[in-house]
């Protein structure tokens, strides 16, 4: 769940991160008043949950309140990547002598948080890492023990920063890491941190992403930041298909079946388990298939819930067949899933043997499940067939349907 820049900055301010003076404006008049209050030149920044603001014209400069008013009017009516701005942040404009980059995120391979720091900020850090690897430092730390500033200092010093700047930047990076841990963030990024012409060091932009599942834990904080409970913070509003999927999932507490994302393809997916959804989605695409949806199933959804999800996926225009696939799971009942999916297909008015391209759920009660699948003539495979091979077979079967144009 991404926070707006102004919310991210509010949070970082609590952790002692130095920031330029700023005010949020929801209208051009408010921006004019904010600029007058700040005095001097200002920068106005569109509050959207997407990158590329500068290129899109969502960041403008003004040297007077009147200029700020007209800049804000332009920004507030400018959608960026399909998003309408939630406001405009009016901030004092400072002269920058040097820019730095700092972020804390999860390194999923190392299974630890990692600090990424660069003394070449303001630009794409991934490009810096390729072009100037000596200017990007990565330092891992444990999420299980209290954070020590030492890790932040090592990261900053690794890029050659020393003296007063080392101390100031260490404090900012350490604050960023503590915020990351305290608020269950998945990304805490400041790009750029600016060394100003007077030598002071401030965070000029900020981007925080909170773990979606942590919203409940941090309800009070989100309220203080003014984030309404119904604000999903998704990059786009959910489609009717996705809303219907969420309703299926919420209809029964048993298992997960209904978290769906809509795509344009012709192969409906009922997939999941232990990271299986992403792997299987990618496997379908790697095999040349076109998924109609992403989906997550797991645990032990009831027969009714699995059937409702199946009906929903089949109701999507353009879906020709469905593939039912999971990673190896110890708890999901194969027979219950088989019953649910077959029931859903029949209730949608189709023949399971024709509509289900492949069924691969290596779970518990397999033999019972296979007996059901055999009874309805559904193609199934066990765990001896990999997820990628199952995906390949599903795509091949869909392509080989009689009367289908290749």
């Amino acid at each position, binding site marked *: 769940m991404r926070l707006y820049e102004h919310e991210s900055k509010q949070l970082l301010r609590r952790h002692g991160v130095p920031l330029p003076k700023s005010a949020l404006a929801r209208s051009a008049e408010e921006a004019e008043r904010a600029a007058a209050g700040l005095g001097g030149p200002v920068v106005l920044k569109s509050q959207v949950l997407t990158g590329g603001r500068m290129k899109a014209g969502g960041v403008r400069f003004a040297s007077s309140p009147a200029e700020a008013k007209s800049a804000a009017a332009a920004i507030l009516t400018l959608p960026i990547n399909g998003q309408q701005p939630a406001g405009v942040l009016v901030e004092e404009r400072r002269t920058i002598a040097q820019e730095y980059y700092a972020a804390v995120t999860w390194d999923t391979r190392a299974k630890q948080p990692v600090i990424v720091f660069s003394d070449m900020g303001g630009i794409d850090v991934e490009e810096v890492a390729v072009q100037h690897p000596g200017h990007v430092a990565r330092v891992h730390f444990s999420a299980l023990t209290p954070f020590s500033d030492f890790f932040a200092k090592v990261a900053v010093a690794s890029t050659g920063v020393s003296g007063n700047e080392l101390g100031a930047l260490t404090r900012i990076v350490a604050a960023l890491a503590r915020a990351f841990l305290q608020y269950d963030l998945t990304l805490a990024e400041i790009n750029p941190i600016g060394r100003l012409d007077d030598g002071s060091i401030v965070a000029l932009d900020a981007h925080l992403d909170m773990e979606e599942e942590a919203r409940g834990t941090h309800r009070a904080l989100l309220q203080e930041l003014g984030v309404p409970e119904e604000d999903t913070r998704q990059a786009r509003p959910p489609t009717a298909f996705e809303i219907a999927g969420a309703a299926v999932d919420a209809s029964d507490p048993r298992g997960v079946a209904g978290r769906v994302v809509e795509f344009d393809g012709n192969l409906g997916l009922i997939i999941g388990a232990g990271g299986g959804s992403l792997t299987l989605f990618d496997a379908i695409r790697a095999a040349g298939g076109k998924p109609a949806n992403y989906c997550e199933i797991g645990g032990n959804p009831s027969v009714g819930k699995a059937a409702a999800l199946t009906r929903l996926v089949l109701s999507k225009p353009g879906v020709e067949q469905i593939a039912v696939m999971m990673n190896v799971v110890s708890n999901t009942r194969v027979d219950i899933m088989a*019953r649910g999916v077959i*029931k859903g297909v029949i209730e949608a008015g189709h023949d399971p043997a024709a509509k289900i391209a492949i069924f691969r759920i290596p779970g518990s009660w397999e033999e019972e499940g296979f*007996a059901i699948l055999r*009874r*309805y003539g559904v193609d199934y495979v066990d765990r001896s067939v990999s997820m990628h091979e199952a995906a390949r077979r599903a795509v091949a079967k869909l392509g080989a349907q009689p009367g289908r144009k290749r």
Partner: protein
Amino acid sequence: MAMFIRVDVDPAVQADPALCKRLVELCPVDIFALDGAGRIATVEQNLDECTLCDLCIAAAPGRVTVVKLYAEG
């Protein structure tokens, strides 16, 4: 309409109100219910949710049968 599971209850079970009540309580997916007169009946829309746990069979041996419709010839 149930597609996968049928549960047969011997009419003799109706003469044992305590057993009827127990069947209702023990089934994890609410396949049994009592009508207004305290008679036990199966709930059609829940039959396919049967987990094959056999608790009902253990509670009423020989008097409750769970039939897998997909296993029939």
